[in-house]
């Protein structure tokens, strides 16, 4: 079921010979080793590999949470490799990146509605009415309208991750990064979540990059990037399994 790589499309993120070395010297750890990677608009990409293969480090560099020690990273056309302040990195994340975490990481004192609203308020590009409309739209897309006023501890794991997806997507970022988004969910819920991400990818054109150990889930991706010891060892493009859930 392999297909050709997309021939066109805007490049959202580009890594050029990007390396991330911890503890330079005798005990150095090469978490990322001269990685070249381009993520294009609308892609649905899985990063796969065993623990310690560099998936999380790569996601952190893609998400401007970390910077490579060598090479170059460009996000939405801006070189973010070095020399940026914490505030500037924060602004880039605010403007261009959405995150989905393994443990959901919702703000426990805010409701489902408010968690999504909060991301838009930080983003600061919409007015109050537009924010209301956008959050309502997201809750409807996620099937969470009935749970809008519940706090995270009143939601199931799957519902929490849906809210997290809504939070990441609401501001329409150039790139959405998901670090093992289904690791804390059961099989059925995991399928639902991946299917939801696929649906958002297709309906909204959102660009997703997610990491996973799960061979079954990675088959939902159009592009699979395999990492071992901080290097990309294999990259495949294929037609994913149908997004039947959600």
């Amino acid at each position, binding site marked *: 079921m392999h297909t050709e790589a997309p021939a066109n499309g805007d490049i959202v993120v580009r890594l050029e010979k990007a390396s991330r070395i911890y503890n330079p010297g005798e005990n150095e750890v090469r978490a990322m080793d001269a990685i070249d990677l381009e993520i294009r608009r609308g892609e649905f990409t899985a990063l796969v590999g065993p623990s310690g293969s560099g998936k999380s480090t790569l996601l*952190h560099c893609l*998400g401007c*949470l*970390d910077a490579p020690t060598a090479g170059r990273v460009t996000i939405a056309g801006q070189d973010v490799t070095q020399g940026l302040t*914490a*505030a500037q990195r*924060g*602004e880039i*994340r*605010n*403007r261009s*990146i959405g*995150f989905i*975490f393994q*443990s959901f*990481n919702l*703000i*426990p*004192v*805010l409701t489902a509605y*408010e968690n999504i*609203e*909060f*991301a838009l*308020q*930080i*983003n600061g590009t919409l007015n109050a009415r537009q924010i209301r409309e956008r959050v309502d739209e997201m809750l409807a897309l996620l099937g969470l309208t009935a749970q809008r006023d519940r706090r995270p501890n009143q939601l199931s794991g799957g519902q929490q991750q849906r809210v997290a997806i809504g*939070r990441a997507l609401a501001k329409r970022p150039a790139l959405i990064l998901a670090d093992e988004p289904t690791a804390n969910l059961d099989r059925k819920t995991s399928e639902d979540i991946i299917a939801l991400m696929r649906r958002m990818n297709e309906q909204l054109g959102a660009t997703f990059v997610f990491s996973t150990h799960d061979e079954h889930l990675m088959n939902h991706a159009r592009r699979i990037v395999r990492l071992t010891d901080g290097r990309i060892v294999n990259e495949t493009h294929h037609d994913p399994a149908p997004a039947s859930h959600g």
Partner: protein
Amino acid sequence: MVDGYLFRLAVRNALRNRRRSLFTLTSILLGVSLFIVSRSFVDGIDATLIAIEVDNESAHVRVVPRDYLAEEDYQPLDKPLTDVSALAATLSAIAPGTRVVDRVSFAAEVGDGRRILRCRGLVVDRDAYRAVFPVGDLPVPMGDEPYLWAGTGIAETFRWKPGDRIFLKAKTRRGTLNALDAVRFAGAIATGHPLVDNYTIVLPREIGAPFLDLPEGFATEVLARFPEPALALVAESRLEAPDGQTVVETWEERTRDFREVNQIRRAAFNIVVGLILLMAAAGVANTALMSAIERTREIGTLMALGLTPARVRRLMTIESLVIAFVGAAVGALIGSLYAHHFAVHGLHFPELEQAEAITLVPPVLYFDLRLSTILQGAAFGLGTALVAALWPAFRASRLSPIEALREND
């Protein structure tokens, strides 16, 4: 400018650990309320003592000859003011409503035939004296017999009742002794001023002048009461003679000594309040620090969402200020209610009511609660919290998002 969404999150975070927040809030509350109560107490002492001095003894200004001042304790009659009527006219012209009285102080002895008490005698025009000092009716007995009024302390010592005949002795202006052995006690003067109540007798001028052999217009002091206390400074500038022979004492100068003593009380209270606010600061810092540590991962999430370090600092600071604001507001309310109660009903010191000695604290003290005191107290509480919250907030904003997100993984 505080972002509304940060404020909402800060308020909810402040309510997360209610017991810890309540402890911090209580320490701020205690500091603020104690500040207001103690400051109102000390201001009350100031206001009460100033009022007692102005209302009963020296008015807003007292004008005396310089050479009289040096020997005032002996109340000499050979160093009078010159041209009393001109002085009185100058004082009266300072502002409409100004009231002026001149008086003669002299050393006197009074007794009941068995006991004798040395005291201060005053010779005054009754109506002018009552116009300047709220000393009550000063009743005039029927008949032609000489009479006097005495402070309540003296009257109680001798158990005089109006109409009782008493003994009076004094040196006249010429230095000869004069005595009256059947002076009527006309009534007691109750002022709250220890010098007046315990050591002063007052003779009307028509009796005192012939008794002391005083000529027309003779006075050792001229006193004035103005519609506004600040006019005392105007009087001082107009009346201080170039030759320095006339001294104008304002009410501020007359009360300087006990106001300085009061500054010591104020400093002592400030130390206590400062210690409580220091405890509050430790509580605020501890609460903010614990909150930041417990929520490291959440702070990492906020940073990943795009919250800049400056906004993280703002969020953490607002959380502390929310707690401090509630503590300061409730503290200001409780402190104000408490101080207001004593401003209306007074704080009684029964042991001082019994005391015969001149004391610097009146037996009934009315607190002086001022808006500025309430605002200062609240500002101190909030300021303390703000300073205490800065470092924990700064520390939280310096977190690495990756490290923070790994917390508790």
